[in-house]
């Protein structure tokens, strides 16, 4: 079954009224007719309408503002939403950090995907999506949020599109006028590639409590955790939030474990390997052949391609959802063989086991009932 948006919180009275009206619409639901007027009125799933699309200067990212249906539960800065969108007739699901302040005045939420040219959804969002497009909204998820009460001192470390959950936190802190003592180290390859560049500089200029250090890795090289001593000498005493590529996060994690209190270090990991397809931090496997028994097709993976991607490139019609191991839309029953979880590097596989094809690659020859 394809993935649906999150079920909205609907009052029992409204549910009962709709059930009664359902006697007139069966086997369709009243929703099916109400959607003719406004697709956002669905009580089956949360939806939103694209209101604005703004290019973030030369960074290759766009900010898509979406007006959610009125049952939208809201989000905490730093959380992400799963977004379902139709591209070339096919529905795709991706997770994006919410970049908007939860209490933005216009009532819209925003995401800021960065163009991944080989991907499916980000090229669509970056160049083709038009205001008025209806999207499905999955649940708001994520524990990468600011504690309550707010710590006195904060350190943000971000790289590339890792700034997206951080900007929501910054916008919220600025609106609440509690941007008291925040150090932000942001890494990007070149000045043009800094997403939200103008806004970050503006915050730096207007708020004495917000110190921005931009690290340009093309000229200055990658950030080494030890350099924090120079950029933010009291880093050990700060509650730290870091988001970026796996290499950076692993290095920071190591640094905190050996030199500070790892409990004060919070990280958000992205699948930045290619448009929502998991970029594993697990070690690379050897790959293998995949027999799709129900499709009567076979494919092979070099060990980096998940079963799903290998099958699709061999022409199989396979179920899929989030493509990042969250939603279980893509599961298939393993008949034989072993697979490697691309996120953890763990090799596993029992005959009869239900596998998520989007995050597992074959480790040797496998057969799967799909």
């Amino acid at each position, binding site marked *: 079954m394809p993935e649906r948006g999150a079920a909205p919180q609907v009052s029992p009275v409204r549910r009962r009224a709709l059930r009664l009206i359902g006697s007139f619409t069966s086997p369709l639901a009243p929703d099916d007719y109400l959607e003719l007027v406004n697709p956002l009125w669905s009580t089956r799933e949360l939806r939103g309408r694209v209101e604005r699309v703004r290019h973030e200067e030369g960074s290759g990212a766009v900010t898509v503002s979406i007006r959610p249906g009125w049952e939208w539960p809201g989000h905490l800065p730093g959380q992400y939403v799963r977004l379902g969108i139709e591209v070339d007739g096919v*529905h795709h699901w991706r997770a994006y950090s919410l970049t908007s302040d939860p209490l933005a005045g216009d009532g819209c939420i925003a995401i800021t995907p960065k163009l991944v040219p080989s991907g499916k959804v980000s090229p669509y969002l970056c160049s083709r999506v038009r205001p008025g497009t209806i999207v499905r909204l999955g649940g708001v998820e994520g524990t990468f949020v600011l504690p309550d009460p707010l710590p006195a001192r904060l350190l943000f470390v971000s790289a590339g599109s890792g700034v997206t959950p951080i900007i929501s936190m910054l916008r919220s802190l600025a609106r609440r006028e509690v941007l008291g003592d925040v150090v932000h180290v942001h890494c990007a390859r070149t000045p043009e590639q800094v997403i939200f560049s103008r806004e970050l500089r503006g915050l730096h200029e207007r708020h004495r409590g917000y110190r921005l250090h931009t690290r340009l890795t093309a000229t200055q090289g990658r950030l080494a955790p030890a350099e924090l001593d120079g950029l933010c000498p009291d880093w050990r005493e700060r509650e730290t939030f870091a988001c970026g590529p796996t290499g950076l996060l692993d290095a920071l994690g190591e640094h905190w474990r050996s030199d500070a209190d790892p409990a004060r270090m919070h990280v958000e990991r992205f699948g930045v390997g290619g448009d929502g397809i998991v970029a594993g931090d697990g070690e690379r496997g050897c790959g293998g052949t995949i027999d799709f028994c129900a499709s009567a097709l076979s494919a092979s993976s070099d060990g980096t391609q998940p079963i799903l991607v290998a099958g699709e490139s061999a022409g199989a019609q396979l179920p899929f959802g989030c493509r990042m191991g969250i939603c279980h839309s893509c599961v298939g029953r393993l008949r034989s063989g072993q697979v490697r979880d691309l996120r953890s590097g763990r090799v596993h596989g029992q005959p009869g086991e239900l596998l998520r094809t989007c995050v597992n690659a074959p480790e040797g020859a496998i057969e799967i009932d799909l």
Partner: protein
Amino acid sequence: MSATLTDPSTVPAALGADPQPASHPQEESPLTRLSPEQIERLGQELDAIHEEVFADLGERDSRYIRAVIRAHRQLVLGARALLAGSRYRPLWLAGTAALSIAKILENMEIGHNVMHGQWDWMNDPDINSQTWDWDTASPAQAWRHSHNYEHHTFTNIRGKDRDLGYEIMRIDPQQRWYPIYVLQPLYNLVLMGFFEWGVALHDLNFDAIRSGEKPKEQAIAELKAIGGKARRQVVKDYIAFPALSGALSAAASGGSRRRSGWRTFKTTLAANFTANIVRNVWAHSIIFCGHFPDQTYTFAEDEVADETRGGWYVRQLLGAANIDGGPLFHLLSGNLSFQVEHHLYPDMPSSRYAQVAPRVRDVCRRYGLPYNTGPFSRQLGSVHRTILRLAFPGGEPRAKPMPGVQ
């Protein structure tokens, strides 16, 4: 429904599923005329057409099905609104016509095809074979089993395809004759009018229940599903909407409120009943034309024992018949007027059948296979002639059309 459908005891055990050797040998089956290599090549050619279409599916197709679904819902709203004034004859006629067309559209181009999984490639939870339910008496799940699996896998295999004559009719001279068949022209008329109920009961598969092949619990669960579905259908068309129309009409009329309300209740009920009958007759006609014009072949089980992919295609080709017509006719028939293409590619979006039809026909011509098509009147005439003729003992297989000839 007639006793013939509801009461299995009136139907001899193996009707329509007669394993006996044929008294009249069919014409030579093209299956034996083609070499295994030819059949394999034919399979590859037909596979290639399928792949080409699936590689091309996209936004245009998604827009099409959404537009049809939207049109259906708007038509329903319009029809129901017209019927609120159904005590006036022109409104009754317009409303009944609109509702009939809406129901036809919903059953044929939308329901049948969505439940076939033709639109599952869109990965849209709202237009998906697993979630769809249609405006007929058949619960979706039971129908998907009896139709998508049984009928589309075992198409026209005597004894396995229960859609052959719907178990109660003799539509092939190779079926054995029983005296009850004398009545088949009569009960076919009843089946026509109440087709949706026939299909719902057919999905139950009385033979399988009797033989124990279908467990009792499952049969009871399916009966309950039919009951639930039937109740919702009856409530909607014969209670809820007539009552709503009646109430609106009573509220709107100045003088004798009760009389005009009651009258509108009755006229709306009659309109809904008529629309259901119109839809049933239409569906019955289109579906019977797709399989039963006398020229289509039927197969014995042993003929298809070790069937290859190519062999399966040939059987599908031979088992189906098309109907000629314009775009509107194809739309209202749910593109089952391309029954040949539908049987070759049951998972292909129906809107693509017209596009692949010339190529399928060309394949038939090159391999010397018949491609059965003809005007609606001729196909329908041949259905009813067959049903009449085979009500009586005997009957000859009729000449098959020349390869690739209309």
